[in-house]
């Protein structure tokens, strides 16, 4: 039905989009791997981060890429605080409670954004928004390629951090054996909060990379949440490599199902993948046992 070159370009574009999904999922999978909680507010926080990028761009004229070093620490602190002071104490340790609290947080964030920004769709117009790389018959948006690069770089940096640094090792220790880690003197609460903070920091980078090619409105968190979960589940909860691969695969799935089933029905591709993975291989591609 479609020529090969269209299908191939769709696959490649899907991978580009998927790389940003992977970045979004990175934070989520890390949080799950360490805290064993499913953070429902991930999508809403992404929306908040995107609005932050928008505001800094409109008020101070800062280019989104330039904002990365600014927003990363800010969101890290925000994530740390939320886990340390709201989720941690409030959940009384029970799993379902955590799910509910993060749901509550997501509702609050989404509606505070709504109150401040109204529901209009906003986008930014950067100089390079329309620039493309032309490779043979294919046209790729520059901003998206940068997104891919940014994603991969972040993943690599994170991986190195977890493998080499002391904090990274502490994080891995807690994720494997919480009690043992605390017995050797690791402050578990601090580690939890740090991990959460890192998760949100990844969102800051994702937001900066997304906004040039995308739009934002308060309810966009919802659209990303399920995609992010699908990536995490597909890749395996707690696996960084899994998140990257999962992201790329999901991006391609979304692109191809949109191409062949029509954009409306094509949305089903992601949800069916999600259900299929959960039913048949809940550990995902690279994950430990669920």
């Amino acid at each position, binding site marked *: 039905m479609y020529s090969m070159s269209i299908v191939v370009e769709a696959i490649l574009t899907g991978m580009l989009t998927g790389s940003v999904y992977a970045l979004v999922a990175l934070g989520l999978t890390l949080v799950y791997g360490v805290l064993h*909680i*499913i953070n429902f507010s991930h999508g809403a926080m992404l929306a908040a981060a995107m609005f932050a990028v928008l505001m800094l761009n409109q008020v101070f004229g800062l280019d989104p890429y330039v904002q990365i070093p600014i927003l990363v620490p800010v969101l890290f602190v925000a994530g740390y605080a939320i886990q340390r002071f*709201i989720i941690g*104490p*409030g*959940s*009384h340790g*029970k*799993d*379902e*409670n955590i*799910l*509910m*609290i993060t*749901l*509550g*947080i*997501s*509702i*609050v*964030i*989404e*509606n*505070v954004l*709504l*109150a401040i920004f*109204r*529901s209009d769709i906003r986008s930014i117009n950067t100089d390079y928004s329309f620039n493309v790389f032309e490779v043979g018959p294919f046209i790729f948006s520059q901003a998206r390629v940068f997104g891919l690069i940014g994603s991969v770089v972040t993943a690599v940096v994170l991986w190195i951090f977890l493998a080499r640094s002391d904090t990274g090792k502490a994080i891995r220790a807690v994720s494997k054996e919480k009690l043992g880690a605390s017995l050797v003197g690791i402050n578990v609460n601090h580690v939890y909060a740090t991990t959460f903070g890192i998760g949100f920091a990844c969102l800051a980078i994702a937001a900066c990379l997304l906004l040039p090619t995308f739009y934002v409105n*308060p309810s966009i968190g*919802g659209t990303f949440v*399920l995609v992010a*979960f699908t990536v995490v*589940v597909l890749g395996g909860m707690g696996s960084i490599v899994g998140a990257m691969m999962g992201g790329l695969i999901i991006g391609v799935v979304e692109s191809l199902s949109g191409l062949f089933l*029509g954009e*409306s*029905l094509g*949305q*089903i591709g992601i*949800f*069916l993948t*999600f*259900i299929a993975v*959960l*039913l*048949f291989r*809940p550990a995902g591609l690279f994950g430990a046992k*669920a």
Partner: protein
Amino acid sequence: MKLKNYLSIIVVVALLAILPMMLQSNVVLNFLIYILIVTLGAQGWNLLGGMAGQNSFGHAAFFGAGAYAISMWQINLGLSAWSGFVVAIAVGALVGWIVRFLSFRAGLRGSYFALVTLAFAEVLRVLANSAQFTGGASGRLLPIETGVQHLQFADRTYFYWFALAMVAIGLVIVRWISLTRFGAHMIAVRENEDAARALGIDVLRTKLRAITISAAMTAVSGCLYVQYFLYIDPTLVFGPKISIEVLLASMVGGLGTVFGPLVGTTALHVLGEAAKLFAGEIPGIDLAVYGCVLIAAICFLPRGLLSLWPTRSASKKAQQPAVETQP
């Protein structure tokens, strides 16, 4: 079925039944009808999430299944509303059964189960959105035909009583279940699934029964919604809004209790109206309040508002020592 166990239900229902006769305002009546519809959905959720401990984030799947079943029965097939009502209950229950069966096979519990219900609700939404015979994204209107045979009532008060009757049946069912062995099984599964299995409880069957009844109740709620507003579209009935509402209501009102959903729904909606009154200009303020309330509820009142109500239940007594050991 001892009567005294249902005394509280009878009293509450009776009070609610005479309410419209004391009110003159249609505004309040409309408000109450909507509360009843959501309560019914929340009762369904509460059965599954509160009593059986299976949190679902996608109860809209059952709500919408019931709503679409009854509307398509009438619009596409031109059949009567009452038979459609029965069919819708069956459809809802079936969807619930399928969801649970599939997830059980995969050993899904807790958070995974919650997510998978969300995915199912979204799948149904996309399907309803794309299919021609459901009216697609533009939704469907039910033709206005007042008359009991069409399950539409010219006088709103009758609809109120009908919804109240449904809620009452729900209350009775929940109370009855809590007194049977099935109810005990559900609580056992909720508290510790592995231990329950070790005791010989058929976990799969318990879960399946729980979700079937839960889904059926929520499907009834969906039917009422459609018959009252006479309009249906995929986002309204399969969207996350309904899923979150029924969840919130149960959590806030009292997980696993009989009156929890009713109390929770009322509290939330009254709160929402109050928020609108004081800060109506700010969009989304009432929903932001809901979110805060949920967080606050989990942090401070994990057992819901009803835990503030003194009860005669044995479990409560057991928590308080017969003799005060602290001054």
